[in-house]
């Protein structure tokens, strides 16, 4: 490790070309900085990536649907001009073990009549539920693209931001202030019980409370996770989800094109070994290949654990801080299957002609089943009856599979990072994949016969491929102790770190995970403020 070659200096280096790293780089480049993005993999995108692993098919290997990506970012960075198209999909469906189903439809009356098949009252309660979700979203949304205030500081900026937060909170009115506090702390199951009587309705809605989360639907804090999945929008339709045309990699490809257009550069296959520090301030980074690249500002797109425990020298960091980093909750709980299909599988539980088949499909019909699936995770094994979030994007997006064939994306909850029975092996990965395939086959008799190729990803694989510690999809769990001014650590929520010039710009920072871009945009703003520059546009 002696003779290191120092290459030309940049204004800022972004470590990692995940979507947040790219968003941050775009904003910095637009403000006139000379930015270089360094990516470990031969491809960019992190968990927002499209890859072709089987002839003619494109997979959204990790993330697969889009809603959270902030509209301001899409607009300012001109992503549509660089090829990004987001197409909403309609509805979704939970297939029941007894052959029944519950679907969600966009049309208000179709939806009401559908829910009323299970409970007339729930059909109306759904409106109350949507109203309350939208109310809570309206409170949170403006906070997404703001730096959370430090409640213990007396700096004018923090006081002003705290006052803003306080005003918004008070603006909710007394009753809703209580609701908000409850929303942020209660379990999804308890929350849904306040609205619905029908088990299938609750089970369908509870799905997004456990996605990517090492908690069960009955664990306190999961109501917020549900909300986290609701606060996005497409073309101003709150809670709508859609496909990025060409897969989620289309988002990061558009970001990369936008970045290049404003003069930024990306180097892939350039894993960073260490962020260099001298006298409490960064000088740049050292790459695994021995090169040193200098810059006074380094933004890390890696999660907080990886940034400080792997890419920095512990000696450069305060011990108390390191201790907090070590205890940051970032447990892996999700797997993913990407499947190339020779044709469209049939699902007898879904009525012919129902558009819900183009939405998200599920097979878990009770909250109890989800909770039992979580029990398996706690015991160090993958769920024997996992919760799956399954979509067939090729029904809508013609670019994902050859004509007549289909691409299926299957997100799997729960799958542990470490198995009780021993390390992940090829056989165990295959057994995990088979469990998921059998789960789907129970609702689709011809499914197995149609499989041409399947990519099976465990949390362990996700960590190794994307660099998400333990495979946690959000770069750290979304519970109140790790949200807002507590994210990633209390006192360190403003993208800055104990080392001057080093910033966090990934999902470990406020407002958290998902393909949202907000942490990247906020981090760039913090950098520019520290440099005394104004943000572009």
């Amino acid at each position: 490790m002696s003779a290191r070659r120092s290459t030309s200096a940049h204004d800022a280096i972004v470590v990692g070309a995940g979507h947040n790293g790219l968003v941050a780089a775009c904003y910095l480049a637009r403000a006139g900085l000379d930015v270089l993005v360094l990516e470990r993999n031969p491809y960019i995108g992190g968990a927002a990536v499209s890859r072709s692993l089987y002839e003619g098919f494109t997979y959204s290997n990790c993330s697969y649907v889009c809603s959270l990506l902030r509209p301001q970012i899409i607009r300012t960075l001109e992503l549509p001009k660089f090829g990004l198209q987001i197409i909403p999909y309609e509805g979704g469906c939970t297939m029941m073990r007894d052959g029944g189903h519950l679907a969600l439809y966009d049309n208000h009356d179709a939806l009401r009549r559908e829910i009323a098949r299970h409970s007339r009252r729930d059909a109306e309660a759904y409106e109350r539920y949507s109203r309350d979700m939208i109310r809570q979203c309206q409170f949170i949304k403006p906070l997404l693209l703001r730096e959370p205030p430090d409640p213990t500081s007396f700096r004018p900026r923090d006081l002003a931001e705290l006052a803003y937060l306080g005003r918004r909170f008070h603006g909710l009115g007394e009753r809703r202030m209580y609701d908000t506090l409850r929303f942020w702390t209660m379990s999804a199951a308890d929350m849904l019980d306040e609205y619905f009587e029908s088990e299938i309705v609750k089970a369908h809605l509870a799905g997004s409370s456990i996605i990517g989360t090492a908690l069960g639907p009955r664990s306190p804090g999961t109501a917020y996770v549900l909300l986290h999945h609701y606060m996005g929008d497409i073309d101003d339709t709150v809670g709508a989800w859609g496909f990025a045309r060409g897969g989620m990699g289309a988002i990061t490809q558009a970001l990369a094109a936008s970045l290049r257009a404003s003069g930024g550069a990306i180097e892939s296959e350039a894993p960073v070994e260490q962020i260099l520090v001298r006298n409490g301030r960064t000088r740049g980074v050292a790459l695994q290949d021995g090169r040193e690249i200098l810059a006074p500002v380094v933004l890390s797109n890696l999660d907080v654990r990886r940034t400080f425990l792997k890419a920095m020298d512990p000696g450069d960091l305060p011990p108390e801080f390191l201790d907090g980093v070590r205890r940051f909750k970032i447990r892996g709980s999700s797997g993913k299957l990407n499947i190339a299909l020779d044709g469209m599988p049939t699902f007898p539980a879904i009525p012919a002609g129902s558009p819900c088949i183009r939405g998200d499909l599920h097979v878990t019909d009770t909250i109890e089943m989800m909770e039992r699936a979580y029990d398996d995770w706690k015991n160090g094994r993958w769920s024997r009856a996992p919760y799956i979030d399954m979509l067939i994007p090729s029904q809508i997006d013609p670019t994902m599979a050859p004509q007549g064939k289909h691409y299926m994306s299957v997100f799997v909850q729960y799958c542990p990072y470490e198995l009780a029975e021993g390390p992940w092996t090829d056989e165990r990965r295959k057994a995990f994949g088979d469990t998921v395939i059998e789960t789907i086959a129970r609702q689709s008799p011809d499914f197995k016969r149609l499989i041409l190729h399947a990519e099976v990803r465990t949390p362990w694989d996700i960590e190794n491929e994307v660099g998400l510690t333990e495979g946690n999809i959000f770069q750290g769990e979304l519970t109140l102790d790790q949200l807002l001014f507590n994210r990633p650590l209390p006192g360190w929520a403003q993208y800055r770190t104990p080392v001057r010039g080093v910033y966090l710009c990934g999902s470990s920072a406020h407002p958290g995970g998902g393909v949202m871009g907000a942490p990247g945009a906020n981090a760039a703003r913090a950098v520019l403020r520290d440099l005394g520059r104004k943000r572009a546009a």
Partner: protein
Amino acid sequence: MIETASSGTAAPHYRQPLLGTPFHARSRALAQVDQYVAWSGYSTVDVYTTVEQEYFAIRNAATVYDITPMTKYRIAGRDAVAYLDRLVTRDVARLRTGRLGYCLWCNDDGELVDDGTLFRLGESEFRLCAAMRQIDWLEASAIGFDVSIEEVTERIAALSLQGPVSCAILKAAGLGEVATLPPFAIGRYDLDGIELTISRSGFTGDLGYEIWMDPSAAEAVWDRLFDVGRSRGLRAIGSRALDLARIEAGYLSPWIDFVPAEHAIRVGRARSPLELGLERFVDFDKGHFTGRRALLEERRRGPRSCLVGLDVEGNKPARAALLYADARCRREIGAVTSAVWSPTCKRNIAIARVDAPFSALGTSLWAEIYLNRELVWERRITRARVVERTFFAPERRRATPPADF
């Protein structure tokens, strides 16, 4: 073919979200301009021929309007009176059997959840007709009461027969006893073996009746009315013509003149009966009801805003106009919720929400009206005066027995 609630065949809801009412085949045959509108899950006619002709039939002859989509609940049981008395703001115990009353219900904060009509069909049997679906609210309010609540919307077909000739038509149809029915009374009748419930009620502010029947009798009743009514100027009307009439009568429409409290997303958007000028339907002396405490407090402090009637100068309806205290539009004090040129009153009328200090009768305000003149927009700052919200209330609506025209 649109599926009707009773036919149970045809397309599933995900292909055809809207149902047809039991009158669908009949209304379809008369709907010349193919303008339909979704109403509570039903496909209903918005315009049959022309809004003007339909409207004048309401005020000049008689009209049939399909009100089947109105949400209907059967509320019965030992505690029905006590339950309803806690639910709505009027004194239900004093509503006699065989009568109906306009009523309001509020949430705990005294904000209006919805309004509707309550029919007392028996000692402890009621029917509540509401604009919005309510089962969630009604059941949540029923905890601790021995009462059964059932939605019966699909089980009852209903027509509103309105206009000065409406009683004459019923008489000609063989329902002569209807003439003795005073306003807000309910009677049961037999039309050649068809059981009908007829109430003297409606949404036009004019003489009129509502006819309630089993869906299987719907077409026969429609046919009978038209057989005897056609020569008397009877017409089927759509929602647009009715809207004109209801504004003249000063009646409120949910989502247009107020946001139902349980649907309001933003803080401060819901309205109380006091703000809506409906205080006379709130009985503070009857004992506790949901929202009473908040309403008492509001009455003490005075409401923040009021829904008033406006007489607007000129003849251009002040649709969605912002209202100002001054002609230079510096102080915004409210907004118009409904506005039309009233063809009967020959006045340019509006319903508007104004800040409380500007709600006294006779107050002069300014409305900002935009006119599209062949794609060129003109802005008119027009004077408006606060007036009684009931713009049209002919004596004939009360006369018992009613005159023949």
